[in-house]
């Protein structure tokens, strides 16, 4: 479906479309806005919107959002545009491991700090029972490396359990 100027009203999974700045500019149904994405990172993890000042946001595939350090004319039909950093269009939005490693060091909310042993279990892809008195849902998992706390990936905390969300290709037995 087209609105006459070549802009599709439906998401096209073969191309990258720049996110609309706000809901007023939204053309494609269900597409998140830049404003919503910035608010989500801020509200969930305390990552300030200014963190992403240099990045444009794009959707390719339904709900897969990419952060790109430059800007080009939208849409663009290529294989990759920056970093896949967020999965939207579901009840709970989910950050990628890469986004958390790249931007998560400034997070101050929904961050769970693990011992090195617990972090190794997490990186291996295994779930584990842990105490956590914050919000349930997707958390940034950190551990100390060379004397500083570093973001490692994304865990899903529910019912007293931290479920590793490390993608298969990124799991390691440390």
């Amino acid at each position, binding site marked *: 479906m087209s609105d006459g100027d070549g802009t599709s009203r439906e998401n096209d999974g073969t191309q990258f479309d720049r996110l609309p700045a706000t809901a007023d500019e939204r053309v494609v149904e269900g597409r998140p806005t830049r404003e919503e994405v910035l608010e989500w990172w801020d509200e969930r993890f305390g990552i300030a919107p200014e963190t992403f000042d240099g*990045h444009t946001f794009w959707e390719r595939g339904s709900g897969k959002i990419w952060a790109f*350090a430059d800007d*080009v*004319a939208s849409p663009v039909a290529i294989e*990759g545009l920056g970093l896949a950093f967020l999965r939207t269009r579901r009840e709970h939005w989910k950050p990628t491991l890469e986004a958390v490693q790249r931007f998560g060091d400034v997070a101050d909310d929904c961050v769970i700090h693990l011992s090195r042993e617990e972090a190794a279990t997490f990186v291996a892809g295994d779930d584990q029972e842990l105490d956590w008195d914050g919000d349930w849902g997707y958390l940034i998992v950190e551990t100390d490396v060379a004397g500083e706390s570093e973001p490692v990936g994304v865990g899903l905390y529910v019912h007293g359990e931290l479920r590793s969300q490390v993608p298969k290709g990124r799991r390691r037995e440390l």
Partner: protein
Amino acid sequence: MDVLERYESLVDDFDAFRAACDRPLPSVVRVNTVKTTVERAKAALTEADIAHEPVGWHDGLFALPDDQPGTNWPYVLGWIHGQEEVSAVPAAVLDPEPGERVWDACAAPGSKTTQLAALMDDSGLLVATDNNLGRISALRSNAERAGATNVAVTHEDARNHSLKPFRAPDSDDHEGAPYDRALVDVPCSCEGTIRKNPDALDDWELDHVEGISGVQKGVLRRAIQTTREGGTVVYSTCTFAPEENEAVLDHALAEEPCELVEFDLPLDSAPGVTEWQGDRFDESVERAKRIYPHHNDTGGFFCAKLEVTAE
């Protein structure tokens, strides 16, 4: 057939060359400064009890005499990337600045792409092209592991590379602006990787060398065409064959507005050769550098720096 014998007339100390080609290479890692600093990465390697030795000419490269790079905390965090020492040469020679437009013409699996992204402080536009979807998957994976956000990946034949996807927002232009710099690290016969892949020469054929030389010429020409006047193009291979090195440069010099320029490299090397099996090349190909395995105890490599000139 002993392929390396054909280079006896080119190499200064042929016995040392042959002996070096028979020695294995240590693993080398490059620190990914998109995600961390060299100091932090060194501290993490030390904490993980992984011996690491600086290679000398490049601050962010470390040989791992006893380990492979894959299973340790700095790797999991994307702080280190396994990359052969000489393979870090062409991106260092291209030396892109933050905010520039750069093309990596034969990018997969992405070692040089991620090095370029780091040199650009993960800003500007870095277009990474490859013609093989399987290899693009590895390229994307490596770019993501590096945390690079300035990489745009295209699947196409680099000889026909299109600037159309990279038009400025809201512009009426049909094409994106030309690049400030381009890296042309072409597919080649890989003779110089013999220390890492002892079977690298098993399928060597002169027909293949001559065939791939045609592809290399096409990619280099497209890079020059898509780079602005005054911009820089670096051409590199991991092979010794002049058919794939100086002959390709000679062709580009004749067909496109460009010249070879001198460059500093803190590694021992020999100049490009101006004559090979009866063919004579433009004298300026001497400005290219041939890195033989016995020079710095590395793999073999070839690297040239070109400047795009007025038509």
